[in-house]
């Protein structure tokens, strides 16, 4: 069902954990499946993401996308992190089964939520960042019969 990359990130998730006194924390939940993801950022004065951690209550795809997403943003600038879409995460994982596409949105949204938190705390504005919805996952996968 899952690609080898997904399984690898699921079995050995990178960056699990918490960051105390994080620069930004974002928690998002998925209405469709009840899963929850939290991302912590440690961002330095140059707006570079020095460290990132996550905690996820969710399916295999949710864990793997969390792990991959944190890998993809680590060391990047805030602006670059904004470019890490769910599509990018999925590609990096060699794809996800159709019913699991929505899980990758959770990761994208968690990044955005953490960045928003960081921006609010520091009174800065990040170009292109919108206030996160409190809840994602209403996007519909292909309806069958």
């Amino acid at each position, binding site marked *: 069902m*899952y690609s080898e990359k997904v*399984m690898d990130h*699921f*079995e050995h*998730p990178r960056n*699990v954990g918490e960051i105390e006194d994080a620069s930004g924390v974002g*928690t998002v939940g998925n209405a*469709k*499946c*009840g*899963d*929850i*993801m*939290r991302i912590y950022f440690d961002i330095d004065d140059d707006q570079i993401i020095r460290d990132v951690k996550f*905690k*996820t*209550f*969710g*399916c*295999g795809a*949710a*864990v793997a996308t969390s792990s991959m997403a944190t890998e993809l943003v680590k060391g990047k600038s805030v602006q670059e992190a904004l470019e890490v879409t769910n599509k990018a995460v999925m590609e990096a994982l060699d794809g996800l089964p159709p*019913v699991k596409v*929505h899980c990758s949105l959770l990761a994208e949204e968690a990044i955005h939520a953490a960045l928003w938190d960081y921006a609010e705390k520091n009174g800065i504005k990040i170009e292109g960042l919108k206030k996160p919805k409190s809840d994602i996952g209403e996007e519909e996968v292909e309806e069958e019969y």
Partner: protein
Amino acid sequence: MEKIIYLDHAATTPARPEVVEAMMPYFTEKFWNPSSVYSPASEAKKAVSEVRERIADSLGTQSQDIYFTGGGSEADNWAIKETAEAYASKGKHIITSKIEHHAVLHTCQYLERNGYEVTYLDVDEMGYIKLDQLKKAIRPDTILITIMFANNEIGTIQPVKEIGAIAKEHGILFHTDAVQAYGQVPINVDEMNIDMMSASGHKLNGPKGIGFMYIRKGLKLRSFIHGGAQERKRRAGTENVTGIVGLGKAVEIAFETMKERTGKEQELRDYAIKKILAEIPYCRLNGGREHRLPNNINISFQFIEGESLLIMLDMAGICASSGSACTSGSLDPSHVLLAIGLPHEIAHGSLRMTLGEETTKEDMDFVVEKLKEIVDKLRKMSPLYED
């Protein structure tokens, strides 16, 4: 590959070697269409009627009331849709429960879209329906009560005899989906006042793609699959002779071994449940205590999610399920676990392990050890868990 511990017998079971052996000649030498006139075909016809007889015996009834189907889902659809159609002039109200299999629930929802009314009975926190609620739900236009014999997820066995008595008293037909119960617990359709009963071969170490429905003599319901005159003109289609023969062998062995087999399973089930509850914090057993399928364990682990749990168990060679296998296409938490009152996130973190006769104490010891590790690892990853 390392050893696999298969704990998903409620999803499907391996066919017994004896079952496969019994089927073999009917694929090739005795491949006849039982409806044919020439004498060799009588071998196929005889084989089919022997199985019909055997199944009837197992239920305390006569063979002409057993009708073969393509599986449990077909039987459920048949019972409900055709009862609805045949008795529509009496009324259009059906009573079922919130924890039925989707083969029943989706069929009821289909009927709702077609002008029928359905009452979905609540269940208590163990999954039992409440008999007084059932009585209250009965209306003059109620034509059918369809309540499953035993639940596929949490193993709860309903008070079928009492339900049958209530149905009979009110002159309402009673169908029970016994797909999980048949071959596991004794069933007598007369004593229990069951008017229709669904069963499926692959749940009792028989082949897939074959099932049957018991229909009490005298019921008006007609064909669901129209066509040829097979099954006393009630179910068209060339008889699946191999499937029927395999089912027959499976039934034979299931009933011969029932007492010993389920006794052993029950012991192991209770051993494992006790051990898990004792050694892993924040978990609870779901489903009936006293009236429970002998092989069913269903436990919720707080703070973790089922699929992740399943994948990690799989990595350790353990096959189990979270909710019902046939609904794994769905992401919603199990409707059964919600109906017994679990909140969404707890329902998500539930694990079903259904034992088989080959399951050993060593298997379960290994499983509990692995479970401890995995639950611990996943909780460490969970934003809901603070230790």
